[in-house]
């Protein structure tokens, strides 16, 4: 399956071509994205997973390699589906730079998931940063420029930290390959490991939107156009989540006990997770700008995810996966609804969207379903995540129990502001006659239906998640087996 590299190469070539194609770009974007999606599906059904691809023919710890395992393919699918769905929201004509940035983003997010080399991972992260920087600045107005510049400054600072961490890893372990690092990490001095972890995690938390590393989030979401919101949410966040899982749980873990070598760091991650949750929920409480509300809530969800993975318990980890999936679909629905409604209302303030829920009930119902899923209400996908995380956190020590209380309080706050928005949609309001094509309602409704299906019938994804967790359970040994078969 050496051809897996096409997932990265084809979008990059498309990016070069996009400089000349003008209006055809949109078509090319669809073709490339659908190629990526169908290719990942082909890989999934080929039954060859897991496998390792050495680029340039150099075997694993020496050359750069791409690894495809169960987790990889799952996130690959999520990212490429997100890309296809986000493209469908682009209606107007875009400048060619937009598509160039998009292709690079597609390549970079795919690459982040596929790569098995830490420096390569770093490069893909940088590519993502620049692509997002360009996409956020797309409107080139006051807000967009400020947001993009501040994001760039923050992530450049962060990237120097991770580069220092990579340097330290190379200095001490003499390797850059994930599997090789994982097999050697137990030889490392404890203090040195925590230095490396601190440097690397803090740069990674920028993408993961964890407080206090996430000041860029709300501005970037607010400043960018709807399609870029979806890219940020569906592709960048998902890739960031993958990075967290791969690096925290599979590379820097020993004897398959998560973060066991430096449990302090796990505790601080838990602390940061619930600070993030509470801060972003409170921030969203009185916010009127719908996009900003969604940005805040996105931070909160990732906080819960981080809480789930830092607990060091496989069932909590399963909950974290549910949270990711629920958030993935729910935010998609919400951003699309926000886009459509704000076009009609002519403003992003949700109070101007009164009565739209009566005129276009499909969108408002989909929004409500997503909101309920994010709140962790039963019959929606988010509930299963909350159940697992809360249940297993209760068995942990004190800091986790505080986290449980905070997460539950924050879900109350979340309920208040989300249902207030839903209520505003359904309340009486005078709207001018506007024409919104019914086609726009189809996608959110389908995605909301997915949330409902997962919520009512968790068996549908439970086994998929367990396959991924089994992979994490058996790391690093199994992972190393795939990549370094000689040992």
């Amino acid at each position, binding site marked *: 399956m050496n051809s897996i590299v096409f997932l990265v190469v084809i979008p990059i070539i498309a990016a070069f071509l996009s400089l000349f194609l003008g209006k055809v770009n949109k078509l090319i974007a669809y073709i490339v994205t659908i190629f990526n999606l169908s290719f990942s599906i082909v890989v999934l059904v080929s039954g060859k997973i897991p496998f390792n691809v050495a680029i340039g023919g150099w075997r694993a710890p020496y050359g750069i390699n791409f690894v495809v395992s169960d987790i990889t393919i799952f996130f690959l699918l999520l990212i490429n589906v997100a890309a296809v769905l986000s493209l469908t929201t682009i209606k107007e004509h875009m400048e060619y730079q937009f598509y160039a940035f998009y292709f690079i983003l597609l390549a970079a997010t795919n690459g982040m998931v596929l790569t098995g080399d830490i420096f390569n991972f770093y490069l893909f992260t940088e590519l993502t940063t620049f692509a997002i*920087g360009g996409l956020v*600045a797309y409107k080139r107005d006051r807000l967009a420029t*400020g947001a993009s510049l501040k994001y760039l*400054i923050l992530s*450049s600072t962060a990237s*120097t930290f991770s580069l*220092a961490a990579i*340097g*330290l890893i190379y200095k001490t372990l003499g390797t850059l390959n994930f599997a090789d690092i994982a097999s050697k990490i137990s030889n490392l001095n404890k203090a040195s490991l925590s230095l490396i972890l601190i440097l690397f995690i803090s740069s990674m938390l920028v993408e993961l939107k964890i407080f206090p590393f996430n000041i860029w989030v709300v501005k970037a979401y607010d400043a960018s156009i709807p399609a870029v919101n979806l890219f940020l949410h569906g592709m960048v966040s998902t890739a960031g989540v993958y990075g967290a899982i791969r690096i925290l749980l599979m590379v820097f873990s020993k004897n398959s006990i998560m973060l066991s070598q430096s449990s302090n760091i796990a505790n601080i991650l838990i602390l940061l997770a619930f600070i993030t949750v509470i801060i972003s929920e409170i921030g969203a409480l009185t916010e009127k700008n719908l996009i900003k509300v969604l940005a805040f809530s996105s931070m909160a969800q990732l906080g819960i995810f981080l809480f789930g993975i830092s607990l060091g318990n496989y069932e909590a980890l399963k909950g974290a996966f549910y949270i990711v999936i629920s958030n993935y679909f729910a935010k998609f629905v919400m951003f699309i609804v926000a886009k459509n409604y704000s076009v009609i209302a*002519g403003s992003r303030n949700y109070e101007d969207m009164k009565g739209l829920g009566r005129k276009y009930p499909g969108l408002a119902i989909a929004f409500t379903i997503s909101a309920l899923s994010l709140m962790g209400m039963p019959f929606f996908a988010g509930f299963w995540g909350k159940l697992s995380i809360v249940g297993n956190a209760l068995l942990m020590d004190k800091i986790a129990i505080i986290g449980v209380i905070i997460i539950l309080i924050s879900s109350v706050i979340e309920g208040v502001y989300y249902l207030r928005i839903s209520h505003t949609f359904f309340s009486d309001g005078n709207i001018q006659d506007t024409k919104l094509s019914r086609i726009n309602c189809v996608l959110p409704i389908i995605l909301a239906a997915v949330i409902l299906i997962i919520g009512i019938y968790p068996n549908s994804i439970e086994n998929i998640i367990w396959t991924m967790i089994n992979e994490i359970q058996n790391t690093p040994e199994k992972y190393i087996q795939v990549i370094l078969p000689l040992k």
Partner: protein
Amino acid sequence: MTQVFILSSLSLMFIGLYGVLTRKNLLKIIIALNIIETGINLLLVSFGYIDHGITPILTSQESILNLNKMVDPVPQAIVLTSIVIGLGTTAFALALAIRYKITHNSISINASEEEEGRGI
């Protein structure tokens, strides 16, 4: 010798970080970022350095015999990449700063972002 490299690179990084933390002028921040990059590059190179090492370039048959005296080539390769990234960041950030100057009429990072009545 390596200690000197490491200490000087650390001090460069600290100076840069200090600049990013305290300056409000965007240009100064970007320059400070560059200083950090330089520090990191020096740090990485010094990680691969060994005392009395020679450059990892083969010039004749003897150099092949001295392979274990050569300094590590990998950090140098990483630094090459990192320099280009630094260049890219600087270019992009400077261009954004020029536009920032036009849209905000200031190059302070504190310039207010308030914008009433924004559309969709």
